[in-house]
């Protein structure tokens, strides 16, 4: 991928994600991870190579919350269902379920300006959940939430993945988050981003919170970390 200004963001990136797979990409800042998702979603046109993604009801959680300031949280969470023409009653109940799931119950009638950054990100995640998407792209959705909430949301996401069996493509800077949720972890190099390592994560779902403290988990995380260090230089 080369931008009009000549910036080369991605190079020789090739992989596929099937339904029932949860692939996480880790890589240094600015290596082209967001660009990768924009291409996958169709927001950006790739300048070279071939991309094939099922984009019907695609789920895409942006790096920023991008909530509409003039809508309450409930109404923001309803937006996608609204754009897909889902009837009012149904989208209201979808939205309410999603809000409960991300732990924002009680904030339905608040406006985005009165929420913290992390809460806004959770609202953004809830908005995407309402679509029950077959393909789910996440761009560092939990970068702004505290560690406890992040771990909680990781567990929820992993359960959701197990239940819905979507094809998941997740971006993060957190190695433990990557190893905890994924079936596969890809490590990208600094810009122009290339895939320099690939790890299969063998743990069974559902994954228990205690998994994070097991030796096998620590060992895998260590290997990913070593690769990521290499990628930085």
């Amino acid at each position, binding site marked *: 991928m080369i931008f009009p200004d000549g910036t080369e963001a991605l190079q020789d990136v090739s992989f596929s994600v099937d339904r029932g797979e949860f692939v996480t990409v880790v890589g240094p800042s*600015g290596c082209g991870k967001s660009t990768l998702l924009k291409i996958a979603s169709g927001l950006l046109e790739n300048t070279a190579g071939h991309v094939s993604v099922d984009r019907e009801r695609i789920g895409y959680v942006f790096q920023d919350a991008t909530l509409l*300031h003039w809508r309450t949280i409930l109404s923001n969470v309803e937006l996608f269902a609204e754009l897909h023409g889902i009837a009012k009653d149904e989208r209201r109940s979808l939205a309410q379920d999603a809000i409960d799931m991300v732990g924002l119950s009680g904030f339905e009638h608040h406006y985005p300006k009165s929420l913290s950054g992390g809460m806004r990100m959770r609202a953004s995640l809830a908005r995407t959940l309402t679509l029950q998407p077959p393909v789910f792209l996440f761009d560092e959705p939990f970068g702004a939430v505290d560690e406890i909430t992040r771990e909680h949301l990781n567990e929820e996401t992993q359960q959701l993945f197990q239940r819905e069996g979507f094809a998941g493509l997740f971006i993060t800077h957190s190695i433990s988050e990557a190893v905890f949720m994924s079936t596969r972890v890809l490590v990208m190099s600094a810009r122009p981003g290339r895939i320099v390592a690939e790890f299969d994560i063998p743990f069974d779902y559902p994954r228990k919170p205690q998994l994070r403290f097991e030796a096998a988990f620590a060992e895998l995380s260590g290997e990913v970390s070593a690769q990521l260090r290499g990628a930085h230089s």
Partner: protein
Amino acid sequence: MTTQEAAETGAIESPLVGGADPSTMHAGVYREKSRPRVLAETVLPPLVMGALIAGLWYSVSYGVLDERRRFLLRPPHQVIEVGFLDWDNFSEILSGLWSSTRVAMIGLAIAITIGFALATLMSQAKVVERAVFPFMVTLQAIPILAIVPLISFWFGTGQKSRVVVCVIISLFPIIVNTLFGLQSAERGMHDLFTLHRASRLTRLRKLMFPAAMPAIFAGLRISAGLSVIGAIVGDFFFGLGDVGIGQLLRKYANNLNGEQLLAAVIMSSALGVTVFLIFGWIQTAAIGKWHDTSDSGI
């Protein structure tokens, strides 16, 4: 741009930094003030200023001007007595004011309709913006006095011409602000609508218009004030039919009615202030819940 720089810019864009709520950072600085103190700090300064102005006014009326020339600036109490407390005089001013208010409202309504339509068109097709905008700016640059003869030539010297002046004078801020507002929705928000294949109309209704509201209101407040000025100026030049405040100003000046002249000026300014306040109030009622006026300056 080097990788290092890119990495730094990337970090600044992360929601961790961007999402921090600035108000929390000053939490410790605010201290409760006692009620009388607040009252003293907010009410006293304008009162003192008002007294100073009245004092200056009296000293000019009685100190600078001698009896023969006192009609140039009547002292405040005479203005109140003759201009406001004499019901015949005051009701004449009020009915002139009402006539001009009607003209201003009609003119503003027309300007809003044309302005919204043009701005919406421009927001939908860059070609239209490129074609129309230079002419809008040119039109805006013509001093209204320069086209007064032309207006009377085309529209006569009555109500119609007064409304035309209002429209011309208040149209530009509406167009510019509405267009700016329609273009103000963030890239990411547009991406959401693109991703879920929203139609052009849906995007306009659910994204661009709501995003434009703060700017639209800013434009409306400016234009409402301008249309009041337009109505008075228009009335001053085009006097056929209803007598508005512009005609009265002209009459009082010609007859050397200093008290009524000043009363009419004060009432005109009161009208402008009222209109501004009303639109501010509508703005707060409409978008105050989600939009902080103090955040963006509009």
